């Protein structure tokens, strides 16, 4: 194959998203270099994975080669690339998120296959030009500088902390890494409400509407916390790392303030505080291979939703088999922020051989798996019996808990709403606030989550709707760019896949 023919075949396979076909054009030790990559990709297996991920991050791909020159085993090309990014939910004006750019490329052939393909182009116009600037009104995690160095571009606010959301890559690149490789995520914003003392376990049971009585040291549990009126407030993951210490690792809600107030006015022998513990998530099928290099604990033997106390890269830490991915992974809780950055760097170094990627929350996968996140401040006045995790509510558990009487009344009157999945008939924009939903028969609801599903190749959502809205019903969802029909379905949308 000549260089010109090889490059044409490469462009054709790229447009089809066919990683195997692209990789087959290369020699066994072929190399691909492009400005969007952190490092050159070497070898056919790595090429197949990387080229597939890039190509499948986009659709409507075309390449116009304007100049093609070859001299022996080398080819030079100038052309224009056109594509639309999948999964970003349009630009704010509703137009597609396009990546159109011109490039120069060179191809070096050996024995009729591509030995080296190098692309030259400017990535500056492809994404926002610089990272979002910050105001000094929120806390930083100890990994702030590290996340900036890793290319964080966009932040949200969570527990009064800056929350790195995106890193300037296309959504599928991060999604694929989570499913096939390993990711590192700064979740220092996920705060711990620490319960310590003789009554810590009993106090935990009082705070949550799930039966926690069978929980033991080393266990982790997902739980729901509601107020005295039965309004859902937050859905923490509870860890029991030390005999006398329980953590409620919580989302965007001041659970510590709530728990301290209750403890202050009760007879509980419990201290409630927020310790200086800023966790990290190491997620994906290769997360074990990465952590096992720097952690002496038997991580491979850990069951899902368990935790242990150990050292990671020599730093005292709690490690749990939990994470916001709905798949395989770990969370690492260094016991002090003082040397947490060292731990971050050690994980990155250990993950180098697996091309670990620093990412934000991979919402596309979380929604596919029905993994959500709840906070009181944007609650839709939901109660736990309406939530995806309503099966965890135990109204008859032995211990009393906050909100039991209210929830019993709600249950006796009949729960009015339930959480369902939605499969949209078209693409929907990024959900920046909840969307109204109607079923055409008077039933309505609120869409709380909406993303592109890379697994299902269409947009999906999670809504809380009137009980009359059933699986299989068609509903209409009003969003900022119009109305899109959706079919009501069950949650989760996909299996774990591990």
């Amino acid at each position, binding site marked *: 194959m000549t260089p010109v023919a090889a490059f044409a075949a490469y462009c054709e396979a790229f447009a089809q998203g066919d990683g195997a076909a692209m990789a087959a054009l290369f020699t066994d030790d072929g190399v691909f*270099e492009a*400005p969007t990559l952190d490092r050159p990709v070497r070898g056919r297996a790595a090429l197949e994975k990387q080229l597939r991920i890039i190509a499948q991050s986009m659709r409507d791909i075309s390449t116009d080669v304007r*100049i*093609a*020159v070859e*001299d022996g085993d080398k080819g*030079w*090309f*100038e052309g224009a690339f056109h594509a639309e990014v999948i999964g970003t939910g349009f630009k704010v004006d509703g137009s597609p998120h396009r990546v159109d750019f*011109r*490039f*120069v*490329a*060179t191809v070096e052939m050996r024995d009729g296959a591509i030995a080296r393909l*190098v692309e*030259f*182009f*400017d*990535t*500056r116009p492809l994404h926002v030009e610089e990272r979002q600037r910050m105001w000094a009104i929120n806390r930083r995690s100890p990994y702030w500088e590290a996340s900036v160095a890793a290319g964080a571009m966009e932040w949200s606010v969570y527990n009064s902390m800056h929350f790195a959301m995106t890193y300037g890559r296309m959504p599928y690149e991060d999604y694929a890494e989570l499913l096939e490789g390993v990711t590192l995520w700064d979740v220092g914003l996920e705060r711990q409400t620490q319960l310590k003392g003789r009554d810590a376990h009993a106090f935990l049971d009082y705070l949550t509407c799930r039966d926690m009585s069978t929980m033991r040291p080393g266990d982790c549990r997902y739980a729901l916390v509601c107020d005295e009126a039965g309004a859902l407030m937050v859905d923490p993951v509870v860890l029991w790392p030390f005999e006398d210490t329980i953590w409620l690792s919580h989302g965007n809600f001041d659970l510590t303030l709530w728990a301290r107030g209750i403890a202050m006015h009760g007879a509980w022998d419990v201290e409630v505080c927020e310790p200086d513990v800023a966790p990290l998530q190491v997620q994906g099928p290769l997360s074990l291979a990465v952590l096992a290099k720097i952690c002496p604990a038997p991580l491979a033997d850990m069951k899902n939703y368990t935790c242990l106390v150990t050292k990671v890269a020599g730093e005292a830490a709690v490690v749990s088999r939990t994470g916001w991915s709905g798949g395989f992974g770990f969370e690492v809780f260094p016991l002090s922020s003082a040397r947490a950055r060292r731990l971050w760097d050690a994980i990155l170094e250990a993950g180098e051989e697996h091309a670990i990627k620093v990412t934000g929350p991979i919402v596309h996968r979380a929604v596919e798996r029905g993994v959500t996140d709840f906070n009181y401040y944007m609650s839709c006045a939901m109660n736990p019996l309406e939530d995806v995790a309503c099966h965890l509510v135990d109204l008859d558990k032995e211990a009393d808990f906050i909100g039991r009487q209210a929830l019993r009344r709600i249950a006796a009157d009949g729960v009015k709403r339930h959480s369902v999945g939605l499969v949209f008939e078209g693409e929907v924009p990024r959900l920046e606030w909840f969307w109204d939903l109607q079923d055409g028969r008077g039933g309505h609801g609120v869409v709380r989550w909406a993303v592109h599903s890379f697994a299902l190749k269409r947009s999906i959502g999670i809504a809380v709707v009137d009980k009359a809205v059933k699986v299989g019903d068609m509903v209409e969802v009003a969003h900022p760019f119009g109305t899109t029909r959706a079919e009501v379905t069950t949650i989760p949308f996909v299996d774990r896949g591990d």
Partner: protein
Amino acid sequence: MTIDVSAGPVAVYASALQQGVDTLHPLTPAAALLAYAGAFCARDAGFIAGLASPTALVEVPLLKPNRLHGAREIGAGHAAIFETVAAARFDIEAPVEAGDHAIATGTLAITRADASHERHDIGLVSELRDGRLQRLSLYFNARRVRLWSDRAIL
């Protein structure tokens, strides 16, 4: 005029300069590409403006705007670059030609006026029309690099 394109950017520029910008034409695409790169290294905006046809286009990633049209804009744009660039060096392979076009790849090393350094893997394309430089496109990743001019050129 004959230019030895195997001599590299600076030598090609020097040779062309010695004989006068006005005597350069007609050029080959490869000679135009190398002469541009050599003039860039010499920080000679006037030469670059003289190299271009009246309707020429020069595209430079680290400039605002990226696209300079016509000799006047091309000269002004490069003058703005050279105010902030203390030294530049192109290391590029011999250009290959296809009709009116030439392509070359290599590296561009820059020392800024503030003594900071940057190095880019680059692609360069030249296009001739009627024997004069009609288009010069410079390709490299300018992300996270400060612009070569902190003001708009036009």
